[in-house]
C-alpha cells in the first residue's frame, strides 16, 4: 500500500495490525471482558476483543449486554483508563541501602516497556493530553511517565456508541479523534464489517503501509462520518462548559455543596476511575534490620482525610469540602493550573459512583439556582 489517505481494513487486517505491532516489540493492551466489565488488559489478538458486547451505563450503574452484531468496539468506556499504564497506581521511586552512617540511594530506572494501546477513545486521547501537561508540561518532569508515554503507540477508535453517561461533545473532546494518535479506526458494521484507518503520525504511516489495506472509497468515508455523527447526536448527558471556571470559583459557598455532601460517601471511586486525576502519595518502607528501604508512589484521592493532614488535623475534614475540592479542581481551578479543564466528559465518575452522583447535574443545580453568585446565565 503506498497511498497516504484513509484506508480500509477487514477484521482479518486488524489481526495483521496486532501482529505487526507485536513484531515491532510493543506490548499490546486493549479492551477485553473481565469480571462483568470491559477493562484494559494485555491482548493476544483480535479474538480477545469484546466482540458483540456493549455496555449500558447510567449514574451508579454499569451492565454488559449482547449486541445483535459482531462489532469489536461497540461500547463506550469502562472503569479502566490508560493512566493505569502511563501513570501506574504503584510506582517505586528509589531504594536505599544503609551501611553504618552512610546511605546509598538508587533511583528506580524508568520503564523500557513500549505499549501499543488499542481502542483509545477521543475523550481518552484528550485525557492523555491533559496528563501530559501535568507530568511533562511543567518545570518538573516525571521521568517514569515520560518514558512510558514516549514509547507508546496509540490506535484510537472513533466511538460508534455513546453511553448514557457520556458528554464528550459538551467538553469538546469527542466523539471524533482529532489528534494525538498513531492510527485511528472507525468501525463500520453496516455492509461488510470493516475499519476505515487513518494514520496520524510517521510511526502510524509505517505500520499502515505494511498492512493489506486498500484505499478508502467515498462510500467508506461517508459511512465512517455517519458513525461519528450518530454518536455525537446521542450523548447521554450535556453540560455547558464555557463558563465553568468562573461559575464554580464564584460559588464556593453555594448550598448545593451541603446537598451533595449528604449523598457523597467520600469513597474516592470518581478519582480512581477519572482518566485525568493524577494525585499521588508516597510511602517509605524498610526491611526488618532497617538496612534496606524504599519509597513507593501510589495513587491517592482528595476524598481521604489523610490527603490534607497537617499537624493541626485535616484541612478538609468535611465531605462537603472534599467533594467541592474534587469538582472545583476538575472543572475550575484545573484551568488556572494547566490551561484546560480537567474533565473530558467520559462519564466514568457518574457510572462508578456508588450513589450515582452526576457531575453534570451538580453543575446544573448550581447554575440554575437562585442562590448562585456571580454573572452568567
Amino acid at each position, binding site marked *: 500500500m503506498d497511498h497516504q489517505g484513509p484506508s480500509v481494513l477487514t477484521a482479518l487486517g486488524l489481526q495483521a495490525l496486532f501482529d505487526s505491532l507485536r513484531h515491532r516489540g510493543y506490548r499490546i493492551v486493549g479492551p477485553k471482558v473481565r469480571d462483568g466489565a470491559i477493562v484494559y488488559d494485555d491482548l493476544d489478538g483480535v479474538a480477545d476483543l469484546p466482540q458483540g458486547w456493549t455496555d449500558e451505563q447510567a449514574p451508579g450503574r454499569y451492565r454488559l449486554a449482547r449486541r445483535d452484531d459482531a462489532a469489536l468496539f461497540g461500547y463506550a468506556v469502562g472503569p479502566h483508563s490508560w493512566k493505569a499504564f502511563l501513570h501506574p497506581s504503584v510506582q517505586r521511586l528509589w531504594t*536505599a541501602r*544503609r551501611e553504618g*552512617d*552512610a*546511605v546509598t*540511594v538508587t533511583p528506580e530506572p524508568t520503564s523500557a516497556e513500549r505499549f501499543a494501546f488499542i481502542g483509545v477513545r477521543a475523550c481518552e486521547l484528550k485525557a492523555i493530553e491533559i496528563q501530559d501537561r*501535568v*507530568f511533562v508540561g*511543567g*518545570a*518538573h518532569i*516525571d521521568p517514569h511517565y515520560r518514558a512510558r508515554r514516549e514509547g507508546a503507540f496509540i490506535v484510537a477508535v472513533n466511538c460508534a456508541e455513546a453511553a448514557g453517561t457520556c458528554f464528550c461533545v459538551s467538553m469538546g473532546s469527542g466523539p471524533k479523534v482529532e489528534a494525538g494518535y498513531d492510527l485511528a479506526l472507525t468501525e463500520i458494521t453496516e455492509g461488510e464489517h470493516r475499519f476505515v484507518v487513518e494514520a496520524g503520525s510517521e510511526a502510524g504511516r509505517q505500520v499502515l503501509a505494511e498492512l493489506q489495506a486498500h484505499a478508502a472509497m467515498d462510500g467508506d468515508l461517508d459511512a465512517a462520518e455517519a458513525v461519528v455523527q450518530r454518536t455525537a447526536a446521542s450523548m447521554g448527558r450535556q453540560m455547558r462548559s464555557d463558563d465553568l471556571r468562573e461559575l464554580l*470559583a464564584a460559588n*464556593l*459557598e453555594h448550598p448545593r455543596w451541603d446537598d451533595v455532601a449528604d449523598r457523597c460517601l467520600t469513597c474516592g471511586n470518581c478519582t480512581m476511575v477519572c482518566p485525568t486525576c*493524577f*494525585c*499521588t*502519595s*508516597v*510511602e*517509605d*518502607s*524498610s526491611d526488618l534490620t*532497617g538496612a534496606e*528501604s524504599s*519509597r513507593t508512589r501510589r495513587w*491517592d484521592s*482528595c476524598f481521604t482525610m*489523610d*490527603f*490534607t*493532614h*497537617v*499537624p*493541626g488535623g485535616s*484541612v*478538609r*475534614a*468535611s465531605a*462537603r*469540602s472534599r467533594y467541592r*475540592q474534587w469538582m*472545583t*479542581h476538575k472543572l475550575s*481551578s484545573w484551568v*488556572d*493550573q494547566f490551561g484546560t479543564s480537567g474533565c473530558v466528559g467520559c462519564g466514568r465518575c457518574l457510572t462508578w459512583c456508588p450513589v450515582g452522583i452526576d457531575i453534570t447535574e451538580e453543575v446544573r443545580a448550581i447554575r440554575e439556582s437562585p442562590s448562585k453568585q456571580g454573572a452568567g446565565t
Partner: protein
Amino acid sequence: MWTLEIEPDGPASAAAAPGQFNMLTAFGVGEAAISLSGDPAEPGRLVHTIRAVGPVSHALAQLRPGAALGLRGPFGAGWPMAEAAGRDVVIMAGGLGLAPLRPAIYRLLAERARYGQVQVLYGARSPADILFRRELESWRRRLDVEIEVTVDHAAVSDWRGHVGVVTTLLGRAAFDPANTVALVCGPEIMMRFCAAALGDAGVKAEAIHLSMERNMKCAIGLCGHCQFGPVFICRDGPVFRYDQVAGLLRHKEL
C-alpha cells in the same frame, strides 16, 4: 522541639532564600517538608527546626550526630527581601511560625542599614513554648530593632511580659504603614487576624506576605496534596502576597 543542622555531602544544593523549605527523609520512615530556619549566608550549614509531631519528624528528631538523612531542596518562593529594602519591616510570628521567619530576621539584622524600622512581634502559647528564646533576648538588647513577645497565657509567677494575642502588639509598634512590608507566619487563623490588623493599621494588602502550610508529598507540583484553590503551595508559595490569597482564605476547608 529540635533544631537539626545538616552538612550537605552530596552535590551542593542551591543557596536557600529566606522562607524556602527542604524535604527531609528519615530513611525507612518517610519524608516531610521542613522550613529552613538558619542563616542563608551559611549555605554549608542547613538548619531546620522541627516539632516532633509525626513519625517522620519524630524519627528526624532522634537522629544521632553524624547520621545520614535524605534532603531535597530548597523549594518554593520565599520572603520578598528585595522588596523590603528601604522600607519598614514588620514581622509577625506565631508559635513555630518563627522558624521560617528566622532566616529573614538574620538577613535584616546583618544588613540592617538597608531597611527602615524593623519590628519583630512574636506570640507563643506559653512562656515555655517560646522558640529561640535566648536569641530573642539577645536581639532585644540591640538598639536598632524592636522585639516584642506575648504569650496566650502564663502564671504570674513565671512571666512578666505581655499576655494576649500577637495582634495586640501591633498598636505599640512604630512603623510607617504606607512604607511597610509585613512578613507573617503562624497558624492560619492567626495569619488572617494579623492581615486584618495590619490592614486596619493602614498596610496595603499587597505589602503583606503570608507563609502557608499544607500537606506536601512531592514539593514540585505533581502530587496534588498542597492545592489551595488554583495554587500549589509548594510551587507557587509557600510565601504569598496577601492580596493574592485573601479571597481563598475567606473559605473554610479550601
